[in-house]
């Protein structure tokens, strides 16, 4: 006979060893709010004292005044201890309520091999897996570009099936709808360039060259680049979100099962719309940026005539066309990255958010890379 009393809150738990049986007498309040509740660690400690584990674990809950999940989780953990030590857990010694609940909780065996696939892989395996997924993604991108090229080819040979109203709608949304934000960004860009120019040029008395700086920078680089950034964040993201949502709600599957090509019906109109509108927006941004520079120049004492005269001398059609040529490609890049991320979207609302983020990130990255490539090409061509 061996008795242990744990007197933390009025002898809430008394463990009595009687031969092969261990009796746990619980009393008092067993709720989550009860302070100093006995923990299963005490039972475990009790077990550790024995040379030979008890054959059965029995309970006496007659003294429990009130209980909630706290008691049940204690019992469940005792059940686990019994399972580990191959002690018999005497369910019948529990009163009706806890017994039924505990029976429910223990009737499904603890699922051992259902970890949510977060296996710990070693470094090499992780690198390999990452590399494989990158290769896979590379193929996906190639596949998408191939599909798009084929669709564009069919469009050029008048064989593509899509709806013109979709194109007009996209043109309206990505063109006219973007004007306010393009106006603001381009105007401020011209302003900023002019101020930066003034810092360098004023000490040399060359304030007039602000016109050269603003003009060249806007038409060659900043006009088209800022339009690209704005369109990527605005239109590219919206393409990805639209197509991603359509993917989640199976609208794209519905198109496919009718034997219609989602690339032609959904991607092509958006590509056409941006291909047409991007250069127009770029030209608009160029003029607004130059106007921004003019405001700064005039505030520093230059006249309108001086500024425009200097500008027309500095900026010729070659410079202007560089921006325009790039803008056609940038339009395609923004449309393609946005649509691609949308089409690759997974099957949950979180995936739509991810697709949108990826659309903007890859859109802007591709724009900058393309711009660098163009810079080298135009340099070689002495343009």
């Amino acid at each position, binding site marked *: 006979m061996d008795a242990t009393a744990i007197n933390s809150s009025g002898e809430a738990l008394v463990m009595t060893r009687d031969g092969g049986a261990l009796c746990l007498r619980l009393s008092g309040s067993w709720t989550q709010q009860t302070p100093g509740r006995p923990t299963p660690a005490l039972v475990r400690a009790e077990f550790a004292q024995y040379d030979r584990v008890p054959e059965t674990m029995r309970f006496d809950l007659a003294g429990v005044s009130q209980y909630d999940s706290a008691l049940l989780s204690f019992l469940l953990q005792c059940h686990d201890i019994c399972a580990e030590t191959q002690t018999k857990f005497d369910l019948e010694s529990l009163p009706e309520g806890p017994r039924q609940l505990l*029976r429910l909780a223990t009737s499904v065996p603890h699922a051992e*091999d259902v970890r949510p696939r977060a296996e710990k892989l070693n470094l090499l395996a992780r690198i390999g897996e990452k590399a494989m997924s990158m290769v896979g993604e590379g193929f996906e991108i190639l596949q998408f570009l191939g599909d798009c090229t084929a669709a564009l080819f069919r469009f050029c040979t008048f064989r593509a*099936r899509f709806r013109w109203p979709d194109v007009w709608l996209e043109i309206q949304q990505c063109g006219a709808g973007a004007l306010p934000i393009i106006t603001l960004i381009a105007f401020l860009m011209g302003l900023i360039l002019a101020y930066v120019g003034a810092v360098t040029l004023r000490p040399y008395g060359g304030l007039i060259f602000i016109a050269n700086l603003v003009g060249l920078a806007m038409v060659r680089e900043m006009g088209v680049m800022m339009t690209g950034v704005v369109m990527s964040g605005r239109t590219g993201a919206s393409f990805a979100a639209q197509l991603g*949502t*359509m993917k989640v709600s*199976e*609208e794209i599957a*519905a198109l496919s*099962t009718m034997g219609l090509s989602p690339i032609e019906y959904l991607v092509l109109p958006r590509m056409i719309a941006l291909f047409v509108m991007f250069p127009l927006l770029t030209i608009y941004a160029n003029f607004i940026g130059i106007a921004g520079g003019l405001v700064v120049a005039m505030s520093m004492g230059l006249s309108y005539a001086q500024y425009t005269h200097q500008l027309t001398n500095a900026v010729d059609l070659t410079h202007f066309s560089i921006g325009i040529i790039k803008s056609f490609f940038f339009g395609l890049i923004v449309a393609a990255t946005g649509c691609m991320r949308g089409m690759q979207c997974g099957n949950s609302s979180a995936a739509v958010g991810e697709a949108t983020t990826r659309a903007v990130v890859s859109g802007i990255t591709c724009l900058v890379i393309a711009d660098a490539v163009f810079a080298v090409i135009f340099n070689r061509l002495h343009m």
Partner: protein
Amino acid sequence: MPENELVPHISVRQLTMAYGSFVVMRDLTFDIGRGEIFVIMGGSGCGKSTLLRHLIGLLTPSAGNVFYNGVDFTGADQELRTQMLRKFGVMFQGGALWSSLTLAENVAFPLEEFTDLSPEAIRATVALKLALVGLRGFEEFYPAEISGGMCKRASLARAMALDPEILFFDEPSAGLDPISARRLDELIIELRDSLGTTIVVVTHELASIFAIADRALFLDVATRTMGGLGEPQVLREESESEDLRSFLNRGMPNPNHVHDPATGSPFVLPGDKPRK
């Protein structure tokens, strides 16, 4: 429909479905007869919808073939495939109506793309199809403006637009109230009886299964293959598979046996084993 009258419309041979290296179901071989209402049933996550997606070509089998009227669909080239797809109508789980189009435009879409009907004739057809699913007067509503059940019915109207030879339903009664679900069942039977359409339904609603199915295919999660094929009433009584009998009896392998709460958790389903 008695077995001896079966004229195969859809034939599935040795179909194995997998996501990467994870095999969902293997070695599925069955025929679906012309004008039959065929139910694909099974517990949650057993691959019912995946099988449907293989049948309609959204997913490619990792092995095996699907034939329609004896023509290989799986191995068909793009052009033949597109032709075959036009004879299908699919009602997706959530409706999958194009959210930028009104109901009328949704139903009209396939008509405009694949027929040379006059706008007047298209309008009349659209009105008919919407009336059939009880949505007359909702032509100008957008999918976001109507309830989920109405979306599903509108989706059925769209699926029926081209008078398809085969209609596929993915969980038609999920999310519908009992009365709408019942009406949809009646509509399905009506479509088969009046138009002779072959109908393939993925569902786990027992009431629906017993009400509509000529034959049912049970996908068994435990064995990862077919767990039974036949008339649901017969399967319920006579199937050798205990999992299947208990599926068709709401968890009680033997319906005459009173469910004893002491024998186990109501949450334990047959075949509810962890995935490897």
